[in-house]
């Protein structure tokens, strides 16, 4: 198991190093190195998957720990861990990554820095695998940052284009905002528990080691902020649409299937320790994101931007799923979404490769030219729309909506958590049908582009076919997934809390007084939190909760599912019909834009979120920068220059004294000597008579003194 995990993890890293240093010298830019590496990873991942799943035991756990940092009295362990969720994630990540690698051979053919592109893909695969395999929060954070970097490199791969350079900067900075929150969350967990290994964290939290439930909620929400950044949830979603500046296979891999799902994966990992309040926050953020992103997707002209907003919206669904306690729904939607959204993105890549434009209004009628792309596109569109039974999207999406409905029915004050995604489901069908009709049906709008369009080579069509096959096989793996991937059973803290809050306490208080239900429930939770240490003392065995969130109240959930099934069928029909009516045989959307000009403008400009950030965050920051620059210039520079001036004055003073006083004394002595010398040299005439006269005079004086 260790060997397989290490092969899976390290071979892509080795490929990255090889590509970085030898890429240009290898034939074909060394693409076979990266593809071979990810192939080896895929084999290892399959083996791991087989090992984990063959036993059919949901609680499977394998881990390996080594000491990473070891200082006196302070150890940070690192480690790898594999459980059923990890095995699924490995297969999803490596599988999609492998197909994208293959697709890229055709798509990126002849681009500059071809070898580096594959190197970056390998780096990304390694980072994502590290994130998935890590058994502790710090390791996850390391992988988290690594995927951030490789995403930055890949978004900015066409960096000579200004928009690409700006997009990768934006993605990186926006992610940092989220990562800051996540880092604070990790530090809070460390402060409270002193451990970061997930298993121990579950255990400690289950034993009530957190100082208060409010702190636990804060930790959960902070960690979720990281997921908000990475998974492009509402306040921080702005980077994902811009990230479409990267090569399309990259969008498929990173910005649809894997990296953005990392946030959902994190929330899934933290699921056992999230408090009901934290889950509620997650559910609301997810619901709002699902709705608003879907509305924006309606009016975008760029095929990749539509898919980008669709991705944001679907990630919102996953968050809703986890937020309402549907562990299976949220994480299974991650899996299914990875397949059908990667297929959609690769399909759009195939289209873009053929017609060399991303504007859907320059396409049209492509189904005759590109039958394979068209077929796979329709299959994955059906999946994202939740087409019943045949597609994998049906199983995950209906489950999320059903659980959300159950949640909404029990807690009517939170009905929005169900209503928004439900409306978004109609919108999803609508915008996907719109793109499909405009791109593949009708008459070609741009004759020339249409004539040149053609299906790509085998390396482009094969991944599409594989992904759509996976999409169609959803019924085969939905069951095993639900049976195998369950929240860690070591703690039922959250489960119990959750059940008590959502289905017990709140029902009672809700019946008494709806408007005060939340307060009453809070009071109830406070009691529960006080009781927690007592439970811990009596031992965890007696602490086993009767029901996990996935087993909650089967009856009400089933009625929810039945109703949701009808509702989403209705949504499907409604969306397809509306879109067909509106967009069938339309040559452009100007008439529509004029008719709904107000709404159109708001949606087309994405609710002016970017503008708001520009005005609310970027500009104040720039002002602050200018202010501090001015402060720097006036005060700091002033002080420095002032001290310089002072020093100059002082030294000119001391220079003056040196010149005038010290030199004056020295020169004075010299001049005095000179003056005396000049005076006395007159005596020394060199005339012997003068000397004699002096001598005579002296003698006479002496004689006179002698006499008198």
């Amino acid at each position, binding site marked *: 198991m260790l060997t397989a995990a290490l092969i899976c993890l390290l071979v892509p890293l080795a490929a990255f190093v090889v590509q970085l240093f030898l890429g240009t010298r290898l034939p074909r830019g060394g693409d076979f190195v990266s593809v071979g590496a990810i192939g080896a990873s895929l084999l290892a991942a399959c083996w791991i998957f087989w090992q984990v799943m063959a036993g059919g035991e949901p609680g499977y756990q394998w881990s390996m720990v080594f000491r990473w940092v070891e200082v006196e009295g302070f150890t940070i362990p690192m480690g790898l861990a594999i459980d059923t969720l990890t095995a699924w994630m490995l297969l999803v990540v490596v599988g999609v990554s492998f197909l994208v690698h293959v697709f890229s051979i055709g798509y990126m053919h002849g681009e500059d820095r071809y070898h580096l592109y594959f190197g970056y893909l390998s780096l990304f695969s390694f980072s994502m695998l590290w994130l998935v395999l890590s058994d502790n929060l710090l390791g996850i954070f390391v992988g988290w940052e690594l995927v951030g970097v490789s995403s930055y490199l890949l978004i900015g791969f066409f960096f000579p284009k200004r928009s690409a350079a700006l997009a990768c900067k934006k993605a990186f900075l926006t992610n940092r905002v989220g990562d800051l929150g996540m880092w604070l969350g990790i530090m809070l967990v460390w402060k409270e528990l002193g451990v970061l290994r997930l298993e121990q964290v579950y255990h400690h939290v289950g034993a009530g080691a957190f100082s208060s439930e409010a702190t636990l909620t804060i930790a959960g929400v902070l960690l979720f902020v990281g997921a908000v950044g990475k998974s492009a949830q509402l306040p921080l979603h702005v980077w994902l649409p811009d990230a479409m500046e990267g090569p399309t296979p990259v969008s498929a891999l990173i910005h649809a299937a894997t990296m953005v799902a990392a946030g959902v994966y994190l929330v899934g990992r933290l699921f056992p320790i999230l408090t009901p309040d934290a889950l509620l926050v997650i559910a609301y953020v997810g619901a709002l994101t699902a709705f608003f992103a879907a509305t924006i997707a309606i009016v975008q002209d760029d095929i990749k931007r539509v898919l980008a907003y669709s991705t944001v919206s679907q990630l919102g669904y996953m968050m809703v799923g986890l937020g309402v306690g549907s562990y299976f729904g949220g994480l299974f939607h991650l899996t299914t979404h990875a397949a059908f959204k990667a297929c959609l993105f690769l399909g759009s890549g195939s289209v873009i490769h053929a017609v060399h434009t991303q504007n859907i209004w320059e396409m049209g009628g492509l189904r005759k030219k590109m039958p394979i792309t068209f077929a796979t596109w329709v299959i994955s569109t059906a999946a994202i729309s939740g087409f019943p039974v045949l597609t994998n999207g049906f199983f995950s999406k209906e489950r999320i909506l059903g659980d959300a409905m159950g949640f909404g029915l029990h807690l009517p004050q939170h009905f929005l958590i169900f209503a928004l995604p439900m409306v978004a489901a109609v919108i999803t069908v609508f915008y996907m049908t719109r793109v499909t009709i405009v791109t593949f049906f009708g008459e070609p709008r741009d004759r020339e582009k249409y004539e040149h369009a053609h299906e790509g080579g085998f390396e482009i069509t094969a991944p599409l076919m594989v992904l759509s096959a996976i999409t169609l096989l959803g019924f085969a793996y939905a069951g095993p997934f639900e049976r195998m991937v369950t929240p860690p059973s070591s703690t039922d803290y959250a489960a119990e809390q959750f059940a008590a809050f959502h289905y017990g306490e709140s029902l009672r208080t809700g019946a008494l007084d709806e408007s005060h239900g939340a307060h009453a429930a809070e009071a109830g939770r406070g009691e529960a939190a006080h009781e927690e240490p007592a439970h811990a003392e009596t031992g965890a065995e007696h602490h086993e909760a009767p029901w996990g969130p996935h087993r909650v109240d089967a009856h009400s959930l089933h009625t929810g599912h039945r109703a949701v099934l009808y509702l989403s069928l209705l949504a499907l029909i409604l969306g397809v019909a509306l879109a067909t009516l509106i967009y069938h045989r339309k040559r452009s959307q100007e008439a529509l834009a004029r008719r709904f000009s107000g709404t159109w403008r708001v949606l087309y400009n994405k609710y002016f979120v970017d503008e708001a950030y520009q005005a609310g965050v970027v500009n104040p920051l720039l002002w602050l920068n200018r202010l501090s620059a001015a402060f720097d210039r006036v005060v700091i520079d002033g002080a420095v220059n002032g001290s310089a001036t002072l020093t100059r004055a002082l030294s000119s003073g001391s220079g003056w004294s040196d010149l005038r006083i010290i030199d004056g004394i020295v020169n004075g002595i010299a001049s005095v000597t000179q003056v005396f010398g000049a005076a006395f040299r007159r005596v020394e005439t*060199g*005339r*012997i*008579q003068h000397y*004699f*006269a002096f001598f*005579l005079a002296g003698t006479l004086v002496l004689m006179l003194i002698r006499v008198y």
Partner: protein
Amino acid sequence: MIDLSWYLLLSAALFGVGTLVVLARRNALHLFMGIELMLNAGNLAFLAGARIHGGAQAPVSVLFILALAAAEVAVGLALIVLIHRTRGTLDVGSFNLLKG
């Protein structure tokens, strides 16, 4: 008997003449002769004193002075001749080679 003071007056007069010669003349030979006059004025004063007081010190001194003068003349005249040969003049004012 001639009073001592006359001898001393003569001696002082001779000395004064010698001094004047040394101070006023610039010819090295004249200076030399002035110095001889002063030496002999001194001799005269010694001998006059010896006539009155007796004793041998004064005549011995005079003999020393005469010997000294002879040596002086021998060396001095040789110098003067040499100077005259090399410089072509005996003007003491022009002997200024060492002047800074």
